[in-house]
């Protein structure tokens, strides 16, 4: 399964990601680069709203690949993640065979083995995201989103796909990938993932960006914002994140806030304005009260 690497260097990854609208720091770009070179999945962890899912989307965009997404949830099973036999169609096929027989064209009844071979063919296979990613001929990026939501036992489903890029189907044999897809797993860390899963992945922790990068993100994502305002937004958000809060503001909330400020026609951020718009950044009343007290009250 050796093939030409997609990227020449981590810098190239960074450049192309930013062209796709994702401002990565060297750490993120470096791990994506390694994920491609080593042919290993990348497990992305970090606080909610720091662009974990977006990273996979942007990588798909910049490589021109199709994004296949498996959203995980509790109770996810084989038939939703890997494949399923289309049993309705199988039944129809058997019925159709019988009808043809009764019409009495003199042919001997089809042997069971023929039918079996027939109804367990590719035609009757419903592919689910994992198998689809493996069987794809065009370049794909596989995103397994919020993998921490499935039970520990279900994780085992992923292991074969993640380590060997193949799926074993008892009736059909093993389907092996023709090309190694880029795989991203995201986790919000609501539980510890199993060692077996972690071992197969490269690990990337995406944290809140530093103010300089956040300013760049705001500038890139919020049209019509001035550099000065973006810098102030980033600085205020940094100060708020330093407080001990239930839920610090995420990058997406920063962007919401910045957009609102632009809509309000603000050119500069003052205490009054911060207090009036804090609810865009923070979602808990206790957090809002605390931030209002700490940040905007006279020192």
């Amino acid at each position, binding site marked *: 399964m050796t093939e030409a690497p997609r990227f020449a260097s981590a810098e190239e990854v960074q450049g192309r990601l930013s062209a796709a609208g994702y401002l990565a720091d060297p*750490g993120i770009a470096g791990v994506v680069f390694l994920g491609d070179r080593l042919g290993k999945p990348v497990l992305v962890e970090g606080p909610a709203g720091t662009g974990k899912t977006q990273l996979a989307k942007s990588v798909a965009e910049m490589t021109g690949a199709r994004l296949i997404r498996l959203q995980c949830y509790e109770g996810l099973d084989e038939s939703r993640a890997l494949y399923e036999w289309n049993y309705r169609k199988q039944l129809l096929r058997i019925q159709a065979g019988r009808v043809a027989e009764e019409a009495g064209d003199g042919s001997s009844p089809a042997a069971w083995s023929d039918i079996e071979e027939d109804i367990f063919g590719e035609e009757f296979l419903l592919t689910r995201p994992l198998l689809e990613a493996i069987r794809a001929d065009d370049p794909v990026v596989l995103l397994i989103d919020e993998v921490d939501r499935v039970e520990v036992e279900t994780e085992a489903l992923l292991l074969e796909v993640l380590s060997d890029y193949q799926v074993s189907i008892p009736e059909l044999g093993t389907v092996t990938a023709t090309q190694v897809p880029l795989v991203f797993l995201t986790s919000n860390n609501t539980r510890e993932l199993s060692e077996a899963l972690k071992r197969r992945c490269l690990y990337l922790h995406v944290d809140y960006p530093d*103010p300089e990068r956040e300013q760049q993100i705001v500038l890139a994502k919020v049209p019509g914002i001035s550099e000065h305002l973006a810098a102030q937004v980033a600085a205020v958000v940094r100060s708020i994140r330093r407080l001990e809060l239930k839920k610090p503001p995420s990058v997406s909330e920063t962007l919401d806030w910045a957009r609102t400020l632009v809509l309000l026609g603000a050119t500069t951020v003052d205490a009054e304005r911060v207090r009036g718009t804090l609810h865009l950044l923070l979602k808990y009343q206790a957090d809002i009260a605390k931030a209002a007290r700490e940040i*905007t009250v006279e020192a």
Partner: protein
Amino acid sequence: MLDVLAGFVRELRASGLPVSLTEDLDAMEALRHVALTDRGAFKTALAATLVKSHAHRAVFDTVFEVYFSLPPASLDWIEVGSGVAEPAEGAPGSRGAEDGLDLDSTELSAMVEEALRDGDDERLRALAALAVMMAAGITPGRPMGGSYYLYRTLRSLDLDGALGRLVAGARGEVGDEFSPLEERLARDRFEERVARFRDAVEAEIRRRLVVDRGPEALARTLRKPLPEDLDVMHASREDLVALRQALQPLARKLAVRLAHRRRHRRRGHLDFRRTVRQSMSYGGVPAEPRFRRPHPAKPEILVIADISGSVAAFARFTLQFVHAMSTQFSRVRSFVFIDGVDEVTRFFDGAEDISEAVQRVNAEADVVWVDGHSDYGHAFGAFWGRWGEEIGSRTTVVLLGDARNNYHAAEAWVVAAIRRRARHVYWLNPEPRSYWDTGDSIVSQYAVHCDGVFECRSLRQLARFVEHLG
């Protein structure tokens, strides 16, 4: 290179990181794809393959610094940009070699301040090196911890003063419209830079110690437990911050696990009626037994914690942790005592911020009866008198303390009485097991009446206990 890497991985394992053989091999493989001269990429490659949990990252960073420290920062720029930074400097020829720099510490602080204002990391790193060279007084072969040198270096620099002056300077630039908000932002910005500078100083000290002692020896002295293994009783201030940060995610994870277990626990009792009805379709043979849905009982938790000086930090953590998990219990009530006892549940009820509630417990609870030294006997007696009636058969009572009773009467009968009413009584002792029953500790007098006595010194042990409760 291989040798260094092998040592590096060995040190990671010794620090408690679970690095498997495959991960080790992955790291080697990854290094083939990055330029070894690019330190950032090198570190990224190692981190991505060897560290699979963010909680372990701090340990990795420290070990990495020890094994792959930066080359000494270059001091060349001083010659170039010296005009503003050090007006008192003499001719360029007067400095150069390690000891030839005729700067005194005030000049150095001025330069540091300058660099902090500009946020010039490269220069800060060089200055950190310079400061360590001048002030730390590292002598080869002296068995002194890194923190001692750090203290010496920072003392000579007066960073707090610099911070104040920087904020004042920022105010001066803007003039009168410098709002409190802006001041706050400026302060946060400079504080972050100062923290970075401190890190640089620390890194430099480590680098010099590595040169002196070799990485293995130094890594051993720097080895620090993971946050969940920190001893709460002897935690430093930074440790406590790390602990607090580890607390919330741990509580969340544990809550998910408990909820999951409750939902999927073994089926309930046999439902005889439905089994018989089901058996009709099998001609009266009970082929398919039916079970009642289990009714998962959430226990009611009652925590009685000693908050006297010796175990205060630990009690705070336990209260915080138990209340963070309160959704997993039908009710949580907490009491604190020193020699008197008071209920503090009200501080937690409706408090959205648990750490704030804990602070109120310290400030407002009425727990001193005579002299403010622990008196378990009196506190338990008072508890029994006021709240003993309210303990029911579904209550699990958790007693918390080191049972150092200052030679007062034990009144162990109270624990026995509680045991008779309650479902379970557990004792958590934050002292190492070997200290129990030494001096004025009388754990075993109470222990005989408890369902279990646990040594509970770290977050990990605490979490294990709480899981056992749920």
